[in-house]
């Protein structure tokens, strides 16, 4: 296909991606170097029944003109990145000097909003992803063994946790784990502690979110593995049987190696999706105990009367950096494959 025809076909798609994905990334980078205007104060004579006194007030008119002139705010360089709600270099230095043990240092660092979100995001990504792969594999093997008449309905119900809107899925579970909900109340009875609440402690909130993540994502890995199992070469399985391989050995030495490329694919997709974990934190109202990088940006943009663009943009840039680091191994591999082919 000549270049000209190629361009004629692809330009709408390309334009959409450039305008709404590439340009916003650049715009975020630009915004992260700016910070909100300082509040312009004026002295106002305020008179009440007990005489007049001079007061400092925010000059709304001056603020409006200032914002109209330079909507992004004033230039701030990389200070936003370094401040206490992002990388917090100064706070970390102080904490390092003050804390006696590594454990104390870690727990103090976890109080800084950015590191709190970063640690949760990384923990979520790297705990949920392997569990999803393993659970999906076992479900696929088990479903593959049931009579084919039941497979349709089983797959239907299995897909639900993944297809249903993440926020709604999270809410459904949230209502059930409420102290008055069915799971919450049952857990209280089992443990024998009427005060037990899955929402109160950070550890339990984290665990709840991880369980939600596995529940929501397992159907994806199940479906991919299930489709892969249909194509496992029967001849190899049969010859393994003739050679005396046990059931487990056949799975271990035939099925699993055959499905390995699929596991890589699931891992890639899951790493990308889990790194942007966001909706469950809203659905479970978990922000007090667990925040993610995406949630940090969301709450900056939602704060008060005026969104904190600078702060949100700096968090966004750091998140994008995280995504790039996450994808680097994949990109290097693809690049090697590509060069080998070329």
């Amino acid at each position, binding site marked *: 296909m000549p270049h000209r025809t190629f361009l004629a*076909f692809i330009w709408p798609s390309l334009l959409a991606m450039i305008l709404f994905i590439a340009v916003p990334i650049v715009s975020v980078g630009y915004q992260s170097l700016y910070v909100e205007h300082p509040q312009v104060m004026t002295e106002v004579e305020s008179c009440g029944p007990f005489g007049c006194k001079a007061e400092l007030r925010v000059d709304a008119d001056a603020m409006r003109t200032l914002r109209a002139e330079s909507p992004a705010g004033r230039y701030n360089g990389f200070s936003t990145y370094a401040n206490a709600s992002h990388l917090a270099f100064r706070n970390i230095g102080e904490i390092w000097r003050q804390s006696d043990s590594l454990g104390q240092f870690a727990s103090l660092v976890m109080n800084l909003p950015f590191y709190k979100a970063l640690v949760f995001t990384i923990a979520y990504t790297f705990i949920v992803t392997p569990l999803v792969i393993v659970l999906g594999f076992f479900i696929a093997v088990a479903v593959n063994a049931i009579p084919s008449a039941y497979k349709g309905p089983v797959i239907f119900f299995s897909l639900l946790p993944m297809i249903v809107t993440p926020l709604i899925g999270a809410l459904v579970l949230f209502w059930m784990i409420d102290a008055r909900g069915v799971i919450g109340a049952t857990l209280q009875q089992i443990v024998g502690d009427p005060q037990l609440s899955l929402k109160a402690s950070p550890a339990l909130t984290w665990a709840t979110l991880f369980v939600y993540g596995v529940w929501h994502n397992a159907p994806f890995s199940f*479906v991919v593995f299930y489709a892969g199992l249909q194509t496992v070469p029967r001849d190899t399985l049969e010859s393994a049987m003739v050679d005396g391989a046990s059931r487990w050995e056949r799975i271990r030495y035939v099925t699993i190696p055959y499905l390995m490329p699929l596991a890589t694919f699931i891992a890639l997709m899951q790493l990308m999706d889990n790194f942007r974990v966001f909706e469950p934190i809203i659905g479970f109202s978990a922000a007090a105990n667990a925040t993610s990088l995406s949630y940090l940006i969301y709450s900056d943009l939602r704060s008060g009367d005026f969104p904190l663009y600078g702060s949100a943009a700096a968090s966004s840039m750091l998140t994008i950096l995280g995504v790039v680091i996450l994808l680097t191994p994949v990109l290097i591999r693809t690049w090697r494959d590509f060069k080998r082919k070329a």
Partner: protein
Amino acid sequence: MTDRVRSRPLPLAALSVGFVLIWLFLAAFPFLWTMWGSLKVEADFFSRTDWMNAITGPKTIQQTGAAFTGDGYRGAWIEQGFWKAVVNTGIVTAAVVTISLTVGTLGGYALARSGYRYTFWLLIAALIFRAMPHVTLVSGYLLPFFELNIWGFLPTTIVVLVAINQPFTLWMLHSFFLTIPKDLDESALVDGCTRFQAFRLVVIPVMWPGVVTTGLFSFLLAYNDFAVTSMLLSQENQTMVPKIASFLGSTQQEGKVMYAVAAAVSAMAPLFVLVMVFQRQIVSGLTAGAVKG
């Protein structure tokens, strides 16, 4: 011989059936429970005394005189104006699916048929774009959209969702187009068709399964989105998902949790129908990327 590979000793078969049953319970029970509970009053669904109340509903009978009540639905749909959010979601999803597919089939076709090196780089760029968290992009939109005065309207959100959808749509359609033999459109070209005619009259008619599958996933992305719709739509233009989220803040205190429950169930129902009708396409779509690498 074939059956020997399949056959299992009884304990193992029982174990795997048991495992499937447990998984089914975990996957389906929360939804069925919430659907059933949405027809009860709050005192039953969130029962302090006994969780069996949510099934039998003694308080519901006491308060409304019947075992089931539509109060939650009435409150959500009429009193809180959820019907408007439903209409908005309908508009947004229909527009997003149509535009994504139109733009995506053109682009995917070009990527599948051009043999040049830059198609590889475009696909890699699309992969990186796909990994971008949506909120980071939203933080880039807000200020320009406020400045241009296009914040809060449905068309803006539609265009943004189409763009965010593109990387995924391109990848999927590209892999579907690769399964269609090149000879087909080349013979059309020989017969005197232009490229576009060959695409429109020869390739698309055999592409329908791929287009339907990709359309399903575009639909799901637009329907399920929270990050974009909650930040880019004004109060009166809200779609279902941000509307449900806003119920949580305002109604939880007023003892109207059941409104949110009813609204959530209402938003779930179309997805159930969708999975029921298009189960095969969803399964094939999820595996399309995997099998073709």
